[in-house]
């Protein structure tokens, strides 16, 4: 039998149901894998083995209402877990233990999932490589000299390396999908409003969504069903029924119309990624879908819009980290205002400072109209591109990332080059639509390549259905890195 840590949640649930294994067996398997591998990967930031055993032992009895009973899960370090370190991998939140749970954490607990610990991330989710974490870079399990993507790099790396069964990440401009693609796992960003953001430490409130990082599409569907739904604690969560994703995705995809946007096959797209895409499209056509080239005319403006809107929102959201109520406080200050400034100087890393300054600039008097307001207007054009596209197409397929995982340090000196690595994922956040990345191949150097499927708002079912059928026709998702 395969080792338990290498299995998916749905495979483990089947074994638990027939009584072959117990939750403690699964946790032991996962803990062993962590001991063997995490010193090399640095995917986990807050993790206490004793607490894990306490939680397994305290599990309520199994019953039919607990969809994830006994399944261990890792959580990105920007999602609040009561009385557990939640630091956004930033020095400024050093020692912070929230007095409440994020809604997704309550939902996981109600469904019997076992919280394992926190995964590494770019500081406050500001990055595409997990290099801006105050705890150091996470390494890509396929090549330890390369980045795992970001900002949910820890989540993607620990799932890919079988140190975890699955994990929750967050996605503001691609932070679930891009690391999933670069680590060879499945990552889903739900529609804006599908999953409650209550207890997700805000980066850009109009773009952020929590979502699953998993080993296969069925697990993504399973986890999405558990975390979705209306929450009175998040006024932007939408009151729509939650479909039974795990069963609905197994229907066939015959005659679905799929758009392939010309604007995504640009200069800078890696040749091997391009080849894998072409292969994947052929495969999807063989499944009975109808693929057709189409246009999303304003794609080239997405990165510009994003880095004004997201930083503007971030500069406002991060104003709360001032040394007064929680986290770090500078002891060097001579006055109250000086305490703010010095706390933020020592508490934030370079990328956080850069984004706060850029966002403050875009919002400041004299620049607001030319930068922030103009970006919001162009955001309307990007959103319209998708509205028009989904009148004709059921889904859109693109590469998730223009390149496979790059080398550690390769892009840290030039923020703009780093920002451009999000070029294919950002539009979905600006338009609020769902997107999923699934493995679709490997480079000659054995680095994973990901395929992105985008859908219309609240139609996670269709993109997961295409992803599931594609996965059934390929075995990319079964390949695992040797560490």
């Amino acid at each position, binding site marked *: 039998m395969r080792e338990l840590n290498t299995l998916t949640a749905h495979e483990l649930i089947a074994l638990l149901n027939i009584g072959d294994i117990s939750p403690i067996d699964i946790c032991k398997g996962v803990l062993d894998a962590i001991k063997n591998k995490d010193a090399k990967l640095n995917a986990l930031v807050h993790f206490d083995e004793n607490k894990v055993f306490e939680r397994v032992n305290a599990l309520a009895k199994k019953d039919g209402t607990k969809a994830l009973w006994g399944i261990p899960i890792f959580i990105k370090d920007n999602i609040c877990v009561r009385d557990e370190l939640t630091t956004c991998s930033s020095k400024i939140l050093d020692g912070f233990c929230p007095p409440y749970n994020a809604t997704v954490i309550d939902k996981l607990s109600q469904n019997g999932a076992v919280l394992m610990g926190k995964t590494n991330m770019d500081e406050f989710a500001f990055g595409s490589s997990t290099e801006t974490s105050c705890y150091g870079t996470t390494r890509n399990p396929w090549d330890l000299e390369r980045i795992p993507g970001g900002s949910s790099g820890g989540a993607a790396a620990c799932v890919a390396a079988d140190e975890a069964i699955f994990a929750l990440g967050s996605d503001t401009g691609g932070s679930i999908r891009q690391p999933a693609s670069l680590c060879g796992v499945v990552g889903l960003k739900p529609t804006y409003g599908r999953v409650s953001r209550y207890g997700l430490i805000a980066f850009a409130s109009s773009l952020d969504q929590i979502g699953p990082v998993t080993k296969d599409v069925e697990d993504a569907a399973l986890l999405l069903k558990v975390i979705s739904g209306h929450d009175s604690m998040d006024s932007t969560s939408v009151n729509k029924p939650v479909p039974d994703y795990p069963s609905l995705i197994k229907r066939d995809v015959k005659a679905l119309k799929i758009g392939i946007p010309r604007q995504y096959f640009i200069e800078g797209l890696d040749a091997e990624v391009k080849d894998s895409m072409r292969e994947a499209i052929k495969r999807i056509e063989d499944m009975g879908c109808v693929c057709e080239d189409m246009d999303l005319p304003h794609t080239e403006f997405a990165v510009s819009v994003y880095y004004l809107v997201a930083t503007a929102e971030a500069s406002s959201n991060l104003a709360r980290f001032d040394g007064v109520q929680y986290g770090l406080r500078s002891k060097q200050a001579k006055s109250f205002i000086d305490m703010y400034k010095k706390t933020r100087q020592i508490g934030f890393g370079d990328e956080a400072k850069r984004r706060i300054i850029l966002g403050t600039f875009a919002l400041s008097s004299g620049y607001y109209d030319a930068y922030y307001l103009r970006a919001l207007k162009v955001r*309307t054009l990007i959103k319209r591109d998708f509205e028009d596209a989904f009148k004709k197409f059921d889904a859109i397929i693109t590469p998730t990332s223009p390149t496979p995982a790059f080398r550690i340090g390769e892009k840290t000196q030039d923020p703009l080059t780093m920002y451009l690595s999000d070029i294919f994922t950002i539009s979905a956040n600006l338009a609020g639509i769902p997107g999923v990345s699934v493995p679709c191949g490997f480079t000659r150097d054995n680095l994973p390549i990901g395929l992105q499927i985008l859908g219309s708002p609240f139609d996670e079912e269709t993109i997961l259905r295409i992803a599931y059928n594609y996965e059934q026709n390929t075995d990319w998702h079964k390949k695992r890195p040797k560490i």
Partner: protein
Amino acid sequence: MAITKDTVKYVANLARIELTEKELSHFTGQLDRILDYVHKLKTLDVARLEPTSHVLEMKNIYREDKVKQSLPPSEVMKNAPAKEKDLFKVQKIV
């Protein structure tokens, strides 16, 4: 130049972040390059467009005006860097 050192200094003060001289010149160069890139937005005519600040078609969300249980002050205060009784303690303001 889209942005000068003086502007970065001014904005950093608005954002309540102290910068070293080195950070200041480093960030100015990087921000200048980023702003130069986003200038491509100027090529579009946006005069007739409505801004999209969020994607949902919803306006105000109301709840019933009922008092609910809040967290106990001891829980709320437990992360405070400095406190006295149930109050956050900071330096003298005026």
